[in-house]
């Protein structure tokens, strides 16, 4: 029986946290938020240099739980870049590589795709994805929006009804929009039905597995963000003084902060369980993923709202930065289907 983090897992989180503190400090976030880019090469390369890209390759010795722990820290730092898409693209391509002789998966070498992976240069596609040199982003089957779409080399389309496709950026029509989420800006993407390669048909269990994994990783991003704004609020309440004392001494605020923590900390185990269930391929893994996505995304939005309220005026300013997490919470909530949508799925899966 083991249901808490190992020292090694905590060390991975600390390494990611430290790397993002160096490569993605709040000054960089401010500059990025006011710029036009949808991708930050410096912090991306720093993360990839940690070797995170290959976490979901079947031979990595890691799994979705480890990937979720990393996405949690990325959410905490409001990191830029399509980390979730990259991790899932590796998971998909490692099992079914559309380019001849590259597959490590059980299906063996696949037929040559109709398009050549020119962007990968000489190296195999999988290696280029693992190293982060080739950038892949996730396009949810029911959505027209993808993060870092303008920087991406590949689109991984995950669709429970139509299967999983890998599409080169050249075949995608990308329309930049003014994105509400400033740290992980979305663009509008249109991809023809027959573009790219089908990696898994809808009937292939991998299609649903990848869709479930995506939900867990977004839930993890939400967990990290919710914890971050709770921590910011608690720290501020200890330091800010009114009526001659730290405002955190007042019971009204203390109880609000207690409720923020009460919403976030127990929900952590929901993410752990969903990731563990996916890694162990437990029968309730799909439902656990839906519940985690729904619950954590609601929790994140509520936490960011509460955080602004707990801060007062400073929280409502642009430059304090709380709004970056608020905006990201809104994006996490809407991305891959709303909480209500996943609760409906969870109810149906449960048979009630």
């Amino acid at each position, binding site marked *: 029986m083991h249901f808490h983090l190992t020292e090694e897992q905590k060390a991975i989180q600390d390494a990611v946290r430290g790397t993002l503190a160096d490569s993605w400090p709040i000054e960089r976030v401010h500059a990025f938020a006011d710029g036009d880019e949808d991708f930050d090469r410096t912090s991306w390369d720093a993360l990839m240099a940690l070797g995170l890209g290959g976490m979901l390759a079947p031979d990595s010795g890691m799994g979705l739980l480890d990937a979720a722990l990393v996405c949690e820290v990325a959410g905490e730092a409001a990191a830029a870049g399509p980390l979730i898409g990259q991790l899932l693209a590796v998971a998909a391509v490692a099992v079914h590589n559309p380019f001849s002789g590259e597959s490590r998966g059980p299906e063996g070498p696949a037929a040559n795709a109709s398009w050549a992976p020119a962007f990968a240069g000489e190296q195999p596609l999988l290696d280029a994805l693992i190293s982060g040199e080739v950038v892949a982003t996730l396009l949810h089957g029911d959505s027209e929006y993808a993060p870092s779409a303008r920087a991406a080399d590949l689109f991984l389309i995950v669709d429970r009804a139509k299967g999983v496709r890998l599409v080169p950026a050249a075949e995608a029509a990308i329309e930049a929009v003014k994105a509400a989420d400033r740290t992980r800006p979305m663009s509008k993407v249109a991809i023809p039905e027959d573009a790219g390669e089908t990696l898994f048909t809808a009937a292939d269990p991998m299609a649903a597995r990848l869709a479930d994994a995506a939900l867990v990783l977004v839930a993890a991003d939400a967990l990290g963000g919710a914890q971050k704004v709770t921590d910011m609020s608690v720290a501020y309440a200890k330091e800010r003084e009114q009526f001659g004392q730290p405002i955190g001494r007042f019971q009204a605020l203390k109880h609000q902060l207690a409720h923020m923590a009460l919403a976030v900390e127990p929900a952590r185990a929901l993410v752990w369980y969903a990731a*563990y269930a996916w890694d162990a391929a437990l029968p309730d893994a799909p439902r656990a993923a839906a519940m985690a996505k729904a619950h954590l995304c609601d929790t994140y939005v509520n936490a960011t709202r509460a955080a602004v309220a707990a801060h007062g005026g400073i929280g409502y300013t642009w430059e304090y930065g709380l709004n970056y997490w608020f905006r990201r919470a809104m994006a996490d909530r809407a991305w891959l289907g709303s909480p209500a949508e996943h609760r409906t799925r969870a109810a149906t899966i449960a048979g009630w």
Partner: protein
Amino acid sequence: MDLSYGAAAEAFRAEVSAFLSLHWPPPSDLRGADLKAFVRTFRALATGEGYLYRTIPKRYGGSEQPVDVIKAQVIREEFQRARAPMEVGGNGMNMTVPTLLEKGTEEQKELFIRKTVEGDYIWGQGYSEPGSGSDLASVRTKGELSADGTKWIINGQKIWTSQGMQSTHMFMLVRTEPDAPKHDGITYLLIDLDQPGVTRRPIRQMTGEEGDHTFCEFFFDNAETPVSWQVGDRGQGWYVSRTTLKHERASIGGADGLGKQFAKLVDLAEEVGRIGDPIVRDKLAQIEGAVLAHRYSSYRIFSCAAAGEDPGPVALMMKLLLTEIGHEMALLAQELIGEHAFIEPAGAGGRGNRGPRGPEKWLDQIMGSLGNSIAGGASNIQRNIIGERGLGLPRDLAMSGER
């Protein structure tokens, strides 16, 4: 992560299960005193095997086992599966015994522990008073030494005593040094409740629940107890009581109970024909998100306990989380029962002979969930604990002198 208990635990499970199939259940025709005797013998056998009273030394009737939360969990699961009785419950096991083991004299341990373990002594808690709830250290029930210095003479009132009508004894906080600072004027006393100076009265609850099993209030009119039944030093009772409250908090929880209650709520939605209603489905799944967060957090706390690690602030949150989920369930149940809310459920509070009950039975949960915000540390006190001990926020000025 790995939720299996491991091969050693499964081997142990087989042992426990084999023991149970040999000794439980009782013959179906056993009744009354014979059944009681059977249960008593069963508990003694189970203790002999090391399954019950594991933290209690053998010389006081326990099985004195090394701490092993996995084994303890396996025992709980197997006993529950077999519907076999575990340790006698109540305040005696949760509070008196741990306090005596830590702070009692040898004489007190000899006198009380075995009798409590065997179910002969039932303990009431004498903490709250009409004027002392969350501010427990303000107790006013008075203790004075008799002229010969051998007895404490007790006058005052205690309230909210569970199992009060059955209690044979009470552990209580009594003010013995009226001039000392608040926390330093209290003494922890044990008292025999079978004496003329003690009057008890059941409290009728808002659920309508009344009778022998409900809470009691106690009146003390020159009640007496020997000085040798005082636990810890005179004036140090507040600090002695901290041991027991800690134990009470640790014993409230029960992820399985919450899961079962949620399953019943889904059944209710089906029973009243509302399970297809998208609003009801959404609300149910929202509540289930919290139910699962509670369940998996209890795994986390359990896992940390097994590894000897501190789970952190989440452990401080479990009681409030359980309470808040109970409220959410009550609100949905209230919607679902519709006009059944016009009907008072048979056997108010879920006790007594009641026969078949319709959806109105949820009134017990709807009202009972309010009790959870009060018992075992009121919700606003839980919020203070989470804020101050969990998040490190400064103490309220009114309480900054408190301990």
